[in-house]
């Protein structure tokens, strides 16, 4: 059941493309029509992809929606239909609401920081001509690290006894206790998540920057003396499509793909730790054995993310100039 939110994240890239097409009213008109002798042949080609989507995306979704209306026996002996009880319970519980609040906070901070730092590094890298390759490789290589490993590396940095970050904090007179203190844990989560996501944003921003025509930059050089003005008036608007794409991707990342990082940091730790909604779905469902409640939560999550994505397209993409 818990693979629902995870597979949602995986399916996100196709979702993104589909939504965008749907929103801009494009239809996929084939340039060239291929005629098949048998009407079944094209379906045969489509079958593997359709099967993957159905098995890993639609089926779990349907399962999640169904079981969210049931109260499941903790030992798996049966389920009772309880209507919307699971939903009302989730939405009125204090734990759920505080996790939701933290998720929103986490989402905003991580997205803002990883986009901001990614852009900053890309702008700097774009200026460097010599050594740019090494610089790029070094930055990008972080992206090759799997999230759980990133979590572990982060964990080492924040280790209570020998983590360098803990020591640095100690110099400033702060006793950093990741996994125990709520905000210390939150800080660690944010730092690791941002660090993990920067390379992704960096790659896209860098290629976005490099696709700004040289002559346009030169024209701006003649028109405006201040580099900051040129950046705000010319570079940034031309990067807007990239930034919009990254915004959508980053929000999904913070909501779903940070799961392994959170898992490494808060697993087997005292209960009062910050976590995102996705992690709570997993915790309540698997650790708490509350399949019904957890399903209701994941359905709520699906709806929220869908709404969020639609809103972004509706209000932001309008203002984005596709060059």
């Amino acid at each position, binding site marked *: 059941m818990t693979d629902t939110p995870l597979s949602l994240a995986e399916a996100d890239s196709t979702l993104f493309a589909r939504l965008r097409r749907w929103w801009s009213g494009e239809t996929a008109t084939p340039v060239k029509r291929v005629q098949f002798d048998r009407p079944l042949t094209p379906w045969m080609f489509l079958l593997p992809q359709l099967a993957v989507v159905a098995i890993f995306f639609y089926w779990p979704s349907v399962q999640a929606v169904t079981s969210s209306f049931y109260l499941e026996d903790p030992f798996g002996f049966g389920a009772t239909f309880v209507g919307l009880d699971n939903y009302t319970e989730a939405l009125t519980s204090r734990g759920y609401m505080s996790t939701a609040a933290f998720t929103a906070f986490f989402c905003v901070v991580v997205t803002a920081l990883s986009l901001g730092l990614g852009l900053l590094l890309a702008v700097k890298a774009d200026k460097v001509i010599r050594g740019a390759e090494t610089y790029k490789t070094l930055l990008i290589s972080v992206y090759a690290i799997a999230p759980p490993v990133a979590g572990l590396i982060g964990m080492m940095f924040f280790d209570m006894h020998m983590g360098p970050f803990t020591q640095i904090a100690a110099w400033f007179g702060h006793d950093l206790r990741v996994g125990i203190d709520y905000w210390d844990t939150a800080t660690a989560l944010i730092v690791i998540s941002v660090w993990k996501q920067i390379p992704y944003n960096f790659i896209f921003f860098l290629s976005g920057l490099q696709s700004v*025509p040289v002559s346009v930059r030169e*024209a701006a050089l003649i*028109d*405006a003396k201040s580099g900051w003005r040129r950046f705000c*008036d010319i570079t940034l608007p031309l990067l807007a499509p990239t930034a919009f794409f990254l915004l959508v991707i980053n929000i999904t990342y913070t909501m779903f793909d940070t799961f392994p990082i959170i898992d490494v940091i808060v697993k087997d730790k005292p209960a009062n730790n910050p976590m995102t909604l996705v992690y709570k779905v997993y915790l309540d469902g698997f650790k708490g054995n509350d399949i019904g409640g957890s399903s209701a939560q994941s359905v709520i999550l699906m709806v929220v993310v869908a709404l969020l994505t639609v809103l972004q397209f509706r209000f932001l993409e309008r203002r984005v*100039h596709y060059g």
Partner: protein
Amino acid sequence: MAHLSLTNVGKTYGGSAQPAVADVNIEIRDGEFIVLVGPSGCGKSTLLRMVAGLETITEGEIRIGERLVNKLDPAERDIAMVFQNYALYPHMSVRDNMAYGLKNRGERKAVIEERVAEAARMLELRPYLDRKPRALSGGQRQRVAMGRAIVRQPSAFLFDEPLSNLDAKLRVSMRMEIRKLQKRLGTTSLYVTHDQLEAMTLADRLVVLNGGRVEQIGAPLEVYRAPASTFVASFIGAPAMSLLDAHVENGQVMLEGHALAPVAHAAGPVTLGLRAEDLRLTSGGVPMRVDHVEELGAQRIVHGTVGDQALAIIDTSEALLPETVHLGVAPSRVHLFDARTGRRIETATQPVAVPAE
């Protein structure tokens, strides 16, 4: 508006031993239209971009007006540039494209509006002021780029092959527009092209570059009538001047053993330059075997060989051509170049008529 002076200007790109531009000295008068012309890779763009500030100056000095600009940012040089691919800001309307530079200089709103309106009127861009560049045709974009330059009222306009992305017909009409506009505004202009026809028609003075060095500076007709070297001779004028191995004997230029015209020059080998339009078909004279004929309607270009050297003549008669024709040329239209260095040899029989400036 200002004069422009380039003193011993040179440029060597980092990592290359050969200078891309070397020893360029040009004094450009206020309001003059200078065209930099030369084959691909000869350093025209490099030189222009050094004036613009887009390329560092590794040697020499550039002054705009009285100001030494070597170390100034492009935005401080009081120049405007028109790029080959227009370089319009794709996310800004035509109006904003033109106004952007002025806004950054802190011009008053009223002034900006007035100048944009004036430029739009001059360039017939008024219907498009609110459009984005991508909704314009190539010619319209080019005009917006011109407008963006005009509104700044700079000391100098810099053009880097501004017409080479347009089709042939539009190129001719835009060429005339640019010339008219520049005359009206009286702004000093530096214009880069590799199209010698464009160079001839636009320039007050031509600067012919070869391998980063100046071959010749002069009014178009001056360069045409008295090319300083075989390089200039073959570059300016279409069809290209025929360059042939010849020698002087007894005060006569001898081409493959036939006397062509009298010249006042010591005996010895020379490179003989003959323009197709200066050659005439005569009954006697140097025999040429006709190879093929290009019919252009008003005239025809006859390609042939004297001995084994290729030659072209423009012929306006419509007579049927025999297999072998005979050529003649007025002695004043014979160009001689040093057989070794390729430099022009001035001879007394070649009075160069240069129109008064």
